[in-house]
């Protein structure tokens, strides 16, 4: 069930990526049940705020950095 929720929130992120990026440029966002529950530039602080908001549901939420610069990942 929890993986399903994660996939639903990932789908929400993909479908609303452009709008979310314009609302939260260069920020981390935490998405749970189709809503942004925390955002900001410092990952630990964002996760801490999200945990206060949704508790352990954070574990199955989507955390994404909405980068406005195109950065190629070469690993």
């Amino acid at each position, binding site marked *: 069930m*929890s*993986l399903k*929720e*994660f*996939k639903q929130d*990932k789908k929400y992120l993909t479908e609303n990526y452009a709008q979310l990026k314009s609302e939260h440029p*260069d920020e*981390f966002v935490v998405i749970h049940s189709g809503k942004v529950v925390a955002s900001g*530039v410092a*990952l*630990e602080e964002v*996760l801490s705020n999200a*945990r206060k908001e949704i508790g*352990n549901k*954070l*574990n*199955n*939420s989507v*955390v*994404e*950095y909405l*980068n406005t*610069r195109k*950065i190629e*990942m070469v*690993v």
Partner: protein
Amino acid sequence: MKIIGTFDKEKPQILVPVGIKIDIFDLNGSAEFLIDTGSTISFISESTALKLGLDFSKLLNIEPSTGIGGEAEIYQIDGYTRLTFENETEHKTIQRKNFRVMKHNFCEHVKENTRRKILSLQGIIGMDMIIGFRFTTAGLNYTLEV
């Protein structure tokens, strides 16, 4: 169990949603793992560790490694970590003993938004697991059989 997908031409990579269960800490969660044939090992990244509430002080720091934009510390999760893959009709759980967590130590020259982008990487399925899978690509289509 087959996971079938299509590469995005703009971002041709394979990201697979995975359920995570860490026995020793009784932690559950989910993350998206990058299928990375260039990585010899599989691991949970720092952002996922923080999201799950993993306490690095309770993990064994096993070895430094060359990572992206600096050095990376590798930690070991004792006991079993269970990774669950699923498609529309079925799921499969693979248990891995002493699974790893990676934490980045960035070089000074790495820009802040690049650091954040690297931190947003959630996990890697590397060759230690891929060799147990059947993985094929055909044009823009891929099939991962776990």
